[in-house]
């Protein structure tokens, strides 16, 4: 065979091979094909990050796959909130789990999204070095504490605790870090503490280098952090699809509250198929104790959001008062209140 033909064949073969491998390994075909479906059948993308605050998202996806109607949406995992925020602004994600203050801030900056449901209650904690110098909250004076975002409830619980102890905001240095990085940074003593959602406090506890200084509920009794937001045009065009999504999340929440067995099962499949975290870690976060994170009741309440908004204004991350009704849409949570838990037993292959 002449050398030119051999080179040509080699080049074609190589291109074919890497294209095939790319298509097999990297491309999410359900997401690509979804774009070609007629609009009323198209599933929407729901963004989440691998924290237990967003656990209802993968749980709903996993269980709904066994149901007759099939999966409800396309879950899309991100690693941090800035990326989700950009995808929402660009309307690439039709729905997302984000921290409540970020949802309020985006809405006040004119991004057309609405809060339709909560993701969870409780499940955030402030963690310090296990045998370090910080024994009580006032010991954090002059220390560096990592938070997931300036628009996060994890930052606000620190301010609530500061108020209790009469500490000025400038006395503690807050740094923004991607949630998956904080446990490593604490282990390396690069930070003195972090305020994060589960499973990162559990990760530090399990690793033997972290100690929970306090859980969010100690300074914020009905603590909520992440909420489900949906693009406004989707609410107008396909309210029925949004209702199915909210119903699914509500049913997953009730399913998770049925006891130890269900939580262990969720830790197993979410860790393996979604979060790429050790199931043992999620199991720790979800069962020690069972009330560490809770997934019911999840209907948004005005009093909770007003408090978040006022704290945001007080701490300088929101410059105007925005009313609860402007950034929430309660019709879906009202209807979801009659839902019951998924009828799904761990290990079986049918769900209702």
């Amino acid at each position: 065979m002449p050398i030119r033909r051999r080179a040509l064949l080699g080049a074609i073969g190589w291109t074919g091979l890497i294209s095939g491998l790319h298509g097999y390994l990297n491309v999410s075909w359900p997401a690509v094909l979804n774009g070609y479906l007629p609009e009323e059948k198209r599933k929407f993308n729901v963004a989440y990050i691998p924290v237990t605050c967003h656990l209802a998202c993968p749980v709903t996806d996993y269980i709904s796959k066994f149901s007759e109607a099939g999966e409800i949406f396309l879950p899309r995992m991100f690693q941090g909130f800035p990326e989700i925020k950009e995808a929402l602004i660009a309307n690439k994600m039709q729905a997302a789990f984000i921290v409540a203050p970020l949802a309020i801030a985006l809405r006040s900056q004119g991004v057309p999204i609405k809060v339709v449901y909560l993701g969870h209650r409780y499940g955030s904690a402030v963690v310090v070095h296990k045998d370090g110098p910080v024994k009580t909250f006032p010991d954090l004076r002059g220390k560096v504490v990592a938070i997931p975002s300036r628009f996060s409830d994890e930052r606000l619980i620190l301010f609530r605790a500061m108020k209790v102890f009469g500490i000025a905001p400038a006395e503690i240095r807050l740094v923004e870090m991607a949630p998956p990085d904080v446990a490593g940074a604490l282990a390396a003593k690069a930070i003195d503490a972090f305020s994060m959602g589960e499973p990162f406090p559990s990760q530090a506890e399990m690793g033997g280098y972290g100690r929970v200084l306090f859980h969010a509920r100690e300074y914020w009794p009905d603590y909520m952090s992440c909420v489900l937001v949906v693009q406004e045009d989707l609410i107008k065009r396909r309210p029925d699809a949004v209702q199915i999504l909210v119903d699914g999340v509500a049913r997953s929440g009730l399913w998770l509250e049925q006891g130890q067995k269900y939580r262990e099962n969720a830790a197993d499949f979410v860790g393996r198929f979604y979060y790429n975290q050790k199931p043992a870690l999620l199991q720790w976060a979800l069962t020690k104790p069972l009330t560490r994170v809770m997934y019911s009741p999840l209907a948004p309440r005005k009093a909770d959001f007003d408090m978040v908004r006022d704290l945001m204004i007080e701490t300088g991350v929101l410059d105007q008062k925005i009313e609860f009704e402007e950034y929430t849409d309660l019709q879906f949570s009202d209807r979801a209140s009659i839902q019951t838990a998924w009828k799904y037993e761990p290990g079986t292959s049918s769900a209702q």
Partner: protein
Amino acid sequence: MTALAQTRSWEPFAWPLLTAALLLLLWHFGVRQSGTDVFPSPLEVQRGTAELIRGDLLWRYIGDSLRRVAAGYLAAASVGIPCGLLLGWYPAAAQVANPVIQMLRPISPIAWIPVAIVLFGISDLAAIYLIFLAAFFPIVVSTMDGVRNVPSMYRRAGRNFGLSPAGLIARVILPAALPRMLVGLRIALGIAWLVVVAAEMIASDSGLGYLVIDARNSGKRYDLVVAAMLMIGLTGLAMDLAFRQAEKLKSIRWGFRDAH
């Protein structure tokens, strides 16, 4: 315009300014045509920049970034040049070290971020370390090549004049290798500045790289993101121009063919 054409005195300024103006127009109309409400127009960026100047932030941020880059770059030069001289002088040493250098060189500074945090915590030192790493390898490699390519005739002549090894390096090798080293130093300075965004991702609280991250984190402030990007570009341009002035110095001018 060919390389031989005589340039008139206004040309070096007018053409680049015209290009910049055309790009700005293209940008302005591109944003208006697409109807995006996310990507900022040049006017919005200008307003964002004015806001930064009013808040006394812009100069402080530029100063802080320059300080970090200067520290990392000077550290890289003061370690890299001796290393390069040594490796160029002893080919055997180069043979041993070269594979390691070539292996470490292509690792992106972003990949070093976790290591930098573990070593230096969340501090200026971590950012400076990343800039050091980015600038170090081009300096070592160009110095090594520069020394290697000094014609052996020069060395022999130096020895015949009775120079000690130290004298030979200082008075013959270094000046002879300088033009090549300078190219490496200039490339390294560009890379060091390039890395400033990644370096300041590590929880700094000032600097142009921090401004990009901070504006990104603060919701919908893409005007500030683009303003920071432009400032990084303009400062890089100024640094490169300053460095080119250094190349005109008499002691190194001989190495460049088109220097007159």
